[in-house]
């Protein structure tokens, strides 16, 4: 198991290198002169020259990349073009909001999607199955920020059960934190639960047709034992893979859903940075976002090894 984890982490190095090259390369793909955007048009040639040296623009690409990577590895992803804010600080400051939504959304998705999928799979072709799959099909077509708006209108505006805007840190008050992210998590989670329910149903149907289920029935085991012991653990294998994809989708969704609830997370940060073409900030978000996704994928692989002894062994 330990070997599995280590080998997965080592395997990430080339991937992260490619991502870092692509991300660093962004700076050089921006049309026009970066210095102009920072200094404005009225700066003197000397100021241009000085800024160029300061940014290292007079060095060859590889040297620039090496320096940038070296600093990045020490946790320094550069400085905002427009104020002296450190990129790492800004992104890490915004991350709790976005991660709260992502993982809260995942919990909601699991709570809805997995039972719905299991139930539908057990009653394949029945009424429960048809209703669940109809809802999943519709759910997959709903933009999550629209669900968020539809939730916001009654719960936050008409009845004011939860605040319409603003984020409370869990360090301040767990209850207020939950209230501040609740609707967003539900909006994100319903969307993701659709895919999860479909996947779980498919996995369940597939597993129930396997030979070992026939063995379990020939052993005289109860329906409960067959479903929850023998089928579910095997059905979990493809479902866990889906969870990896869903975390990625939820993180993306969170960037947008944040806007509905006025939560100032990574979404607000990156939107503002794109509008002003504040490249170091966008780079920081991409790098840290990738780290989050990649760490989740390692966790998914570990969970995968837990349900699938074959993976664990190799």
């Amino acid at each position: 198991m330990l070997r599995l984890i280590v080998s997965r982490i080592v395997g990430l190095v080339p991937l992260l290198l490619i991502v870092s090259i692509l991300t660093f390369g962004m700076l050089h793909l921006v049309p026009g002169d970066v210095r102009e955007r920072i200094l404005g048009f009225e700066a003197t040639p000397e100021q241009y020259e000085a800024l160029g040296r300061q940014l290292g623009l007079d060095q060859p690409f590889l040297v620039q990349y090496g320096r940038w990577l070296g600093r990045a590895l020490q946790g320094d992803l550069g400085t905002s073009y427009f104020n002296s804010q450190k990129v790492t600080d800004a992104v890490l400051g915004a991350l709790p909001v976005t991660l709260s939504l992502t993982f809260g959304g995942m919990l909601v998705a699991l709570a809805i999607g997995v039972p719905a999928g299991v139930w539908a799979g057990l009653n394949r072709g029945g009424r429960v199955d048809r209703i669940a799959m109809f809802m999943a099909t519709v759910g997959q077509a709903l933009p999550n920020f629209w669900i968020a708006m539809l939730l916001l209108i009654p719960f936050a505006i008409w009845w004011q059960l939860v605040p319409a805007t603003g984020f409370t840190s869990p360090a301040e008050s767990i209850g207020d934190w939950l209230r501040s992210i609740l609707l967003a998590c539900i909006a994100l989670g319903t969307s993701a639960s659709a895919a999860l329910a479909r996947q779980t149903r498919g996995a369940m149907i597939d597993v129930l047709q396997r030979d070992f289920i026939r063995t379990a029935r020939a052993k005289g085991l109860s329906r409960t034992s067959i479903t929850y012991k023998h089928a579910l653990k095997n059905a979990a294998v493809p479902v866990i893979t889906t969870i990896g994809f869903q975390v990625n989708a939820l993180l993306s969704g969170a960037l947008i859903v944040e806007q509905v609830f006025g939560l100032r997370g990574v979404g607000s940060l990156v939107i503002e940075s794109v509008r002003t073409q504040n490249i170091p900030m966008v780079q920081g978000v991409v790098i840290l976002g990738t780290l989050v996704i990649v760490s989740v994928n390692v966790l998914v692989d570990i969970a995968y090894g837990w349900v699938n002894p074959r993976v664990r062994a190799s």
Partner: protein
Amino acid sequence: MSRAATGVAAEDTNAQAPLTGFARTWRAFLQHRLAVIAAGYLLVLACVAIFGQALLVHDPLAVDLARTFEAPSAEHWLGTDHLGRSTLGRLVVATSVAMQAACLGVGIAIVLGAPLGLLSGYFGGWWDRIGMRLVEAIVALPALLVPIAILAILGPSLTNAMIALGIANSTAFFRLMRGAALEVREELYVDAARVSGSGNVRIVFRHVLPNVTGPLIVQTTLAFSYVLLAEAGLSFIGLGVQPPESSWGVMLATAQRYVQQQPFLAVPPGLMIMFTVLAFNLLGDGVRDALSRAGGVVRAASNPGRVPGAGATRASAAAGSVATATVGEQPASGPSVPQALLSVTGLEIRFRGARGGELAVVSDVSFDVPAGRTIGLVGESGCGKSVTAMSILGLLGDSGRIAAGSIRLAGQELVGLPESALNGIRGASIGMIFQEPMTSLNPAYTVGNQIAEVLVRHAGLGRAAAAARAVELLDHVGIPGARQRAACYPHEFSGGMAQRAMIAMAIACEPKLLIADEPTTALDVTIQEQVLDLLSGLQEQNGMSILLITHDLGVVADMCDEAVVMYAGNVVEQGRVDDVLLDPRHPYTAGLLASMPQNLPQNRPQSRPRHHDRSGRLTQIPGRVPPAWAWPAGCRFHPRCPYATEVCRQAVPQMVAADDRRIACVRAGEIDPVAGWRA
């Protein structure tokens, strides 16, 4: 699913008239009602996008500050926004923008991803490796950050957003085309095309592209869904379409800003996104379904057993040493027939067919399994042997049922018993082992756990006691290092070891009857012998009866006291094993025997040769067992029988008892069933 069922029906009707692949797919698609509706909706939407603005009464850009935030009314069907503009008008404009944008985004994704993927897969090498690494890196990024990063470079605008989404989505097309090209490249006919001197371009157009057209269409519909949703999202956060231009996302952003004043503003654009994305998804599902159906991947639902095995007749050659040598060693079953432990009488099993209605797959099957004896159920694949065995345990699944007859175990009627009572018998009084030991064990639990489970369930043992007993059982069936092996997972076992573990599980509660369904078919020849010896040894020790299902007459000769030969759901001959094998009276039995190697070595057990061919000649029964819905009238064996006459085509043979034998053949007695197979 009912869809699948109608699909089978469609396939069958289509099969009558040869249709081209496209026509078949098209017909299958038309049966998919939701997908057809979705396609219709999308056509209407396209018309609205193109001509809609000409039909509008209100100018979508006309500001009327006296009439802001109006609810839907006769004049403004969908109300007005914060500038008093008609929501309906803006929605029509937005539809046009969304459709153009989606076409642009998907177009870029295809133009960029598909050719690169095709080249990458077709030529392979370094470019392929670099391409794949890049794709992997892009996929590892948070999905929305790819277009966002690209927009950071290009600056926010609709066109740039579509370029960004196109690039982000091109990875899907890259992978699809690469996979298809790779696959086709490996296939024989492309090799053949190459040998015959076709150029690469020609190969791509003639062989690769036609094969990916279907998946490409499905992927395109998915891409439309993705681009529409992502465009709405990007426009919503202000990185896509820029106001005063209208798009569904921009309209939702407006609704968000004025949600206090007029919540209804959020409804129309959201519904438009939902219906449109839904339509693309349903269209994709429909096309995918139609393609897989037209591709002829149809499983015969009416044949609940295994798929009729190709060449099963010849496979029965497996065995080898029939009769002669071994039969003499069989304990002669005296005139006093022992009391039957299991008694099956007049069994009829029906399955619901794919097109509704029921089909009898087994009828009028009767046999006894005396205590302590081994009875062989023999026949080719698809004769109903396994279904008969499963019915004894009441495990016919949802679509099968016992329509008539009786199954008695030690006097107790099993047919009609409630599920809970049957569960008390399964694994306790009746144990069962299967053909594929590896897949019959649950890969997620240790072998010890799976054996202990039966003991906890039936023998009332605690977990610890059951675990200890499981180790004893593994030891008992000859697994070395049983204590360690009990903690292993099935994938760490060899096939033979896994079958031993299955046997340990089946005999854990000392059943009176062991049903063994092709227990050695999936195993190595040398292992087969060991497993059969283990079964006989266990039988000697605990006196259980064995119902052995096999297509292998050699196994029958080795193991069984009596043989019940089945063909196409009926018993055709039954009797003592030496009688049946040395003096077959039914042409089918004789045919099975004749399709085994001649000049069999006499010295079992040292050698049980497979595909052994000393005589240089092996007879085969022509054809194979037809599926249940195609069983002929009269004697079901007549199309394959060298003795068939007009009588056989009409009269259904009745089971006739003579001496200790029972034979169902109209011409029994008047023919020499062996001679015909020599010709």
